[in-house]
């Protein structure tokens, strides 16, 4: 096969890593919410799309560079997520997981269709960054590189936040055992709101990155949420690092399958992986067994 040349393989690998970084950023956010409050947020991908569409709007109406827009969008969505948690999710944290699944499913439907009403089903993109970096025989597109690097940086940043800072440790404490954390004086509710805000901000950031490399429409979230599930189940639900590796793994697998078989089969990988892993190990391949 003409594909089996080192240069091409390397290109596929790098492409996969960069794409995977984006998935990881998104999946880690979803995982964070699950870890802290045992809620599966089916509207997570739509939060990402809010970031993507916001970037598009700012680019087309104000000519703002996406990276600059991110500085406004990400904090804004953080606040949005924070209050969204307070108003809505708090009501379902104590209920069985299916309740929160249905509730967030409803929210995702609402968001997607509001998106359709406002933006229609046309594909949008933000071609703000062009060009590629060339190393010998390998060409990597600039937008993909930036998206990948920023995604990794943010994901690692959040990880450091969780590991090193006091607030981050409080978040982790609530993930491990909310009741005990509460007794130790941690305001569990605040932490939940913070975590959701953070996860939303991560999703929005992923959305900004998304907008510069892919074209998207309000319905794009459906694919992404599936991929997130595949990732967090492979990596272990609630396991932050697991989701990071899982995301990158998925990106690479997709890249290779897409090249060797077909792009559509590459797209289907997430579904297949998800069902396979769910059946083999509902607790994921890495990470501690959880609920």
């Amino acid at each position: 096969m003409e594909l089996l040349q080192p240069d091409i393989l390397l290109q596929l690998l790098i492409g996969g890593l960069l794409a995977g970084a984006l998935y990881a950023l998104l999946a880690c956010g979803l995982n964070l919410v699950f870890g802290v409050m045992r809620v599966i947020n089916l509207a997570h991908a739509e939060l990402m799309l809010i970031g993507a569409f916001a970037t598009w709007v700012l680019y087309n109406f104000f000519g703002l560079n996406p990276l600059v827009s991110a500085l406004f969008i990400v904090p804004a969505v953080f606040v949005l997520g924070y209050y969204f948690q307070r108003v809505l999710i708090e009501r379902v944290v104590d209920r069985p997981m299916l309740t929160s699944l249905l509730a967030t499913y409803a929210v995702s439907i609402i968001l997607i269709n509001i998106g359709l009403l406002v933006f229609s089903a046309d594909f949008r993109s933000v071609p703000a960054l062009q060009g590629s970096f060339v190393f010998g025989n390998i060409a990597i597109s600039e937008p993909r590189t930036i998206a990948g690097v920023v995604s990794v940086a943010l994901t690692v940043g959040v990880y450091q936040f969780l590991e090193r800072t006091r607030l981050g440790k409080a978040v982790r404490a609530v993930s491990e055992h909310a009741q005990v954390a509460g007794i130790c004086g941690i305001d569990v509710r605040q932490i939940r709101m913070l975590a959701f805000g953070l996860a939303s901000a991560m999703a929005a950031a992923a959305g900004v990155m998304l907008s510069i490399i892919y074209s998207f429409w309000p319905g794009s979230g459906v694919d992404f949420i599936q991929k997130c599930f595949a990732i967090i189940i492979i990596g272990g639900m609630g396991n932050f690092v697991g989701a990071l590796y899982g995301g990158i793994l998925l990106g690479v697998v997709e890249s290779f399958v897409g090249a060797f078989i077909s792009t559509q089969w590459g797209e289907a990988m997430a579904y297949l992986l998800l069902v396979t892993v769910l059946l083999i190990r509902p607790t994921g391949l890495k990470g501690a067994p959880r609920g």
Partner: protein
Amino acid sequence: MASSGNGRPIRGIWPGALLLLLALLAPLALNQYYQSFLLQVFIAIALAQAWNLISGMTGYVSFGHAAFFGVGAYVGALFLTWGVPWWFAVFSGAAIAALLAVPLGMLTLRLRGPYFAIAMLGLNEVGRIMATLWVSVTGGGSGITLSPKLLPSLGVEYFSALVLAFGATLLVARIYRSRFGLELRAIREDEEAAEMMGVNTTLNKVIVFVLSALIPGAVGAVYAMYTTYIDPDSAFAGARNIEMIVMVLFGGSGTVWGPLIGAGLIMIMREMLWAQFPAAHLALLGVLLLVVVLYLPGGVVSLARRQRYLRPDARKSGEAPPP
């Protein structure tokens, strides 16, 4: 009122019979437009009851169940292009959907609640992707067009849909009152405890899963006959998935009348909105679902039931009953 084995009286026999009678007579009074509308309502009712079986009654909430409808639609359409009689096509749609449900069910029903829901979430999309990729069989993106010569009249399609809707509702009612239904509901309430009480949870779950796939399979084939053209997007429409879920939850999940009422009301709402504003219709469904999940988990039907099944001493006085 007639009584059933487990002590609950059978309500709704007369209203049900009345509705059936009206539905049977409707084609005499209504024009094609309204007949078509009712046909779609029947399809919705059948789908809702099927979803109700696995998700409402057994508690295994399936987020991608519309996939079986899509399978039925394609199977039905294909068989029709090969010249089989229409009823055979419908039967095949049901049979193939049921056959697929067996291994699928045995694999996914092992997963607990939320994981089952997630596993099923992508099923509809998988169906759509496969329909797009398997060009040799499904015609890929171009879909399958059915020439009118192969199809029965609107009247026949109408009655098929009616029979399926009525049959599905009857099936749910029958199961609800049966030992099988009792075991399903026990599984929903507490699967482990049910297992402890001697209930064969695995067998029960697979049977109900297959039943819940069989009905959409048949209905899908009828749909294909009715629309004369199907493609991946119409057969595996995400909207149908959403409607199935919201109709049942809004009406009252796990009950006999709930899906019926939910389907009816939402189809009426859809009729008013869809043509002009499909996105608005779905957004409203989302809002409806959210409201139901947060404030009215038992659905519309629970509004009527509020007063029943309270403790005898709770009803006698206004004070709190003794422990």
